[in-house]
């Protein structure tokens, strides 16, 4: 599954996107955050406050409790500041 990062999440992780293959016990978007966070130092820094991270699955806003099964693209980013 394709994972994308934006703004300071992207900067902290050090890349804009990647393909990941999480284990089967990663069921929800929130599980994926925890799994990514545990990978390495940059990811731990990017997700240091998981509660502020916003998540989109296939370009729709979702909650951390949303299951990721079937998702093609999951994005992680800070609260938005457009307008």
């Amino acid at each position, binding site marked *: 599954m394709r994972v994308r990062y*934006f*703004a300071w999440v992207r900067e902290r992780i050090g890349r804009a996107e990647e393909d990941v293959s999480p284990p089967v016990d990663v069921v929800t978007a929130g599980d994926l955050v925890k799994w990514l966070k545990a990978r390495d130092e940059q990811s731990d820094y990017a997700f240091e406050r998981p509660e502020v991270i916003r998540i989109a699955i296939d*370009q729709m806003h979702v909650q951390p409790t949303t299951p990721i099964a079937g998702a093609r693209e999951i994005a992680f980013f*800070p*609260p*938005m500041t*457009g*307008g």
Partner: protein
Amino acid sequence: MVVRLQPHDFDISAEIDQLVAGRTDIGAVVTFAGLVRDMAKGAPILDMTLEHYPGMCEAELERIEAEARSRWELQGSLILHRYGRLTPGERIVLVVTLSPHRHAAFEAAEFLMDYLKTRAPFWKKETAADGTGHWVDAREIDDAAMARWG
């Protein structure tokens, strides 16, 4: 009903003219334009870079616009947002609403801006006078502004 993302500037009159385009049943046209301010948290900024999530941005703005159409009697609307590097005084965003009635046009324009601020995937990074970049923090006041629409 139009959504557009572009790096370059826009002309407000030209955008309105295109929406109105010879119609004579429109009573009210409201526009909101957001500009880059020269100060952020009391300190001057040199410029600002707008990052966005291509694809989701357009999709989200279209969802926001559809929501506005379902709530107010709109004869047309536009959400136009720039991305990339912008300097103080430059236009960032334009919202236009057309309605037979002025109150609907005003409310819908404010609604579009409130929703856009909190739901459209854009992020601003400002360059301070010393050249360092700073991501703009989301403002709680924007969440409160959106919450009042229920």
